């Protein structure tokens, strides 16, 4: 009766790594993450990791200043000095792409962060109390959902002038329902679970049960939806920057770079094409990753193993023979 059975699709590598040294544990975790993400998911994760690293270490990685260039060097092709060439006023395109990752990723991060900070508590409150409270939350969300995000952003910019801040604020409001509706539906399912009743009977309060238990169990859905929202927000902000409503030229930003009509008119596609590729790849990666994350059980998350408990050591325990 001591046969240890792995769960049907137990985390790959879990059994092999249990009790092994630190190095092989780490390797096991990476292998587990790869098997869990699949080829497309892994490619997406690696691409995004690269973008984040570029944004964080932009000043160290960029070969040149993104905002200065010599007019004499304009529209150069690939060379040792300028790996990806230069744009219309001689700025290094590679450096602008690297620095561009900062504003291009920071904007959507703010949008998703703010809308999560507003949307998740709203959703949890609605799911917990139900009845009139939930109805009120639902109607407000429906109302905001009816407003197209871009339209709201354009209106805000019209009122407060162009710039990153008004665009981010407007999109944050518009993205609240996008996250909140999914969280609310998932939380409502948990709310009626007997385990929530059991915790209530144990004397635990609304806050603790909602955050420590319900939110933790729906974390994959929340994170997955957040990743997808991040992608959409990136696209929206890039569109706004392209229109000259959000990030302002000459700041290095992928959206701003795509709007370089001068280059296109003169027949140079590289300065416009490359940031476009990065935008498309980022959005695609976030969508792939988001879908993968949201389909997962929280306790089976190699990527979030530390948050949700160790991956290894999960085995089917034997029936206790009394």
């Amino acid at each position: 009766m001591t046969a240890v059975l792995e769960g049907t699709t137990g985390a790959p590598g879990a059994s092999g790594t249990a009790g092994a040294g630190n190095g092989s544990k780490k390797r096991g975790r990476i292998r587990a993450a790869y098997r869990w993400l699949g080829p497309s998911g892994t490619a997406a994760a690696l691409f995004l990791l690269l973008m984040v690293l570029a944004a964080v270490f932009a000043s160290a990685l960029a070969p040149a200043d993104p905002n200065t260039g010599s007019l004499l060097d304009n529209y150069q092709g690939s060379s040792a000095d300028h790996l990806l060439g230069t744009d219309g006023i001689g700025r290094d395109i590679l450096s602008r792409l690297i620095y561009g990752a900062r504003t291009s990723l920071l904007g959507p991060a703010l949008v998703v962060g703010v809308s999560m900070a507003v949307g998740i508590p709203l959703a949890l409150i609605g799911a917990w109390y139900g009845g009139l409270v939930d109805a009120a939350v639902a109607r407000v969300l429906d109302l905001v959902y009816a407003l197209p995000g871009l339209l709201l952003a354009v209106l805000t910019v019209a009122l407060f002038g162009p710039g990153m801040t008004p665009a981010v604020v407007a999109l944050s409001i518009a993205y609240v329902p996008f996250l909140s509706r999914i969280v609310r539906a998932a939380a409502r399912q948990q709310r009626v679970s007997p385990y929530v009743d059991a915790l209530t009977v144990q004397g635990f309060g609304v806050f603790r049960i909602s955050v420590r238990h319900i939110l933790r169990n729906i974390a994959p859905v929340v994170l997955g939806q957040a990743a997808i929202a991040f992608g959409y927000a990136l696209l929206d902000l890039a569109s706004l920057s392209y229109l000259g409503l959000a990030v302002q030229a000459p700041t290095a930003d992928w959206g701003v770079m795509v709007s370089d009509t001068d280059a296109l008119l003169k027949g140079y596609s590289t300065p416009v094409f490359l940031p476009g590729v990065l935008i498309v790849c980022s959005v695609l990666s976030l969508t792939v990753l988001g879908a993968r994350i949201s389909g997962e059980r929280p306790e089976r998350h190699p990527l979030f193993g530390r948050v949700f408990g160790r991956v290894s050591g999960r085995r089917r325990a034997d029936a206790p023979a009394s």
Partner: protein
Amino acid sequence: MLRLRDVNVALNVEGRMRPVLSGLNLDLAEGEALGLVGESGSGKSMTVRTITRLLPQGARVSGSVEVDGRDVLAMRPAELRAFRGSDVGVVFQDPRAAINPTHRIGEFLGEALTVNRGVSRAEAARRSADLLASVGIDDAGRRLRQYPHELSGGMLQRVMIASVLAAEPRLILADEPTTALDVTIQAEVVGILDRLRRERGLSMVFITHDLDLALAVCDRVAVMYAGSVVEVRSARDLHETARHPYTIGLLGSRPSIEERAPRLAAIPGRPVSAFEAGPGCAFATRCAFAQAECRARRPRLEAFQDGLVRCHRVEEIHEHSVV
């Protein structure tokens, strides 16, 4: 009537073949009621699905399943449809899931008659009313116009039984037909099933986890464990004549309604499924009498004292009356 020999069934679970029935043997005589009793994972529902060939995609089956001398596993699609339509009837556990919720009761019953029996609509309506009357539903006219959601679970299970009777099968497979019902309703439904079976001389396989219920409804009882039958015995005196350690354990596990025992003679461990069983006797891991031989070699289902028992040590255990 029904004869299963060395039936092995494996299901495809995420690319791996998992045995659910292993070496199953079962016989059912004409007009007999056989109880199939077991805990979860014992394969009792899979047995019904194997007999009707309602197995999921990718299932692998070996052995032979004969109904009335015809090999079910070798039947061609048209033959199989005719077999399911008129030779065998299945009463499922949850009638609400088995009856289309958008059809009125009349349509549901009429369909079985018009399609399988080739009866006219008017004739079908008349016969439907008769069928409802035979399962103890009086106001047939009103019931036939109702939708499933308007009927209680017990009523719906009666309708289900009526629909099975409509095809006039000679073999009924009842898969936990009363598990979802209250005990008073269970008594009614089981009473109806029993009366109809006797009146019409039908054979029946009655599947349940409730040993006492099976003993009350059936002539013989087959106890299943980990995908095979471990004991077959007459239902009349199983409480005294049970010989397999598992059957004895099951009998001791249920508290009595008539007296209060201080403790129950519980079987340790949990029931295993066929895919978890080792090379030896599947029950060896929980059996108080298990020896090296039990864990190494699988016993066969052999005749012992007017019944069949699958146990290496059954004679020893019985002679030394350790039980």
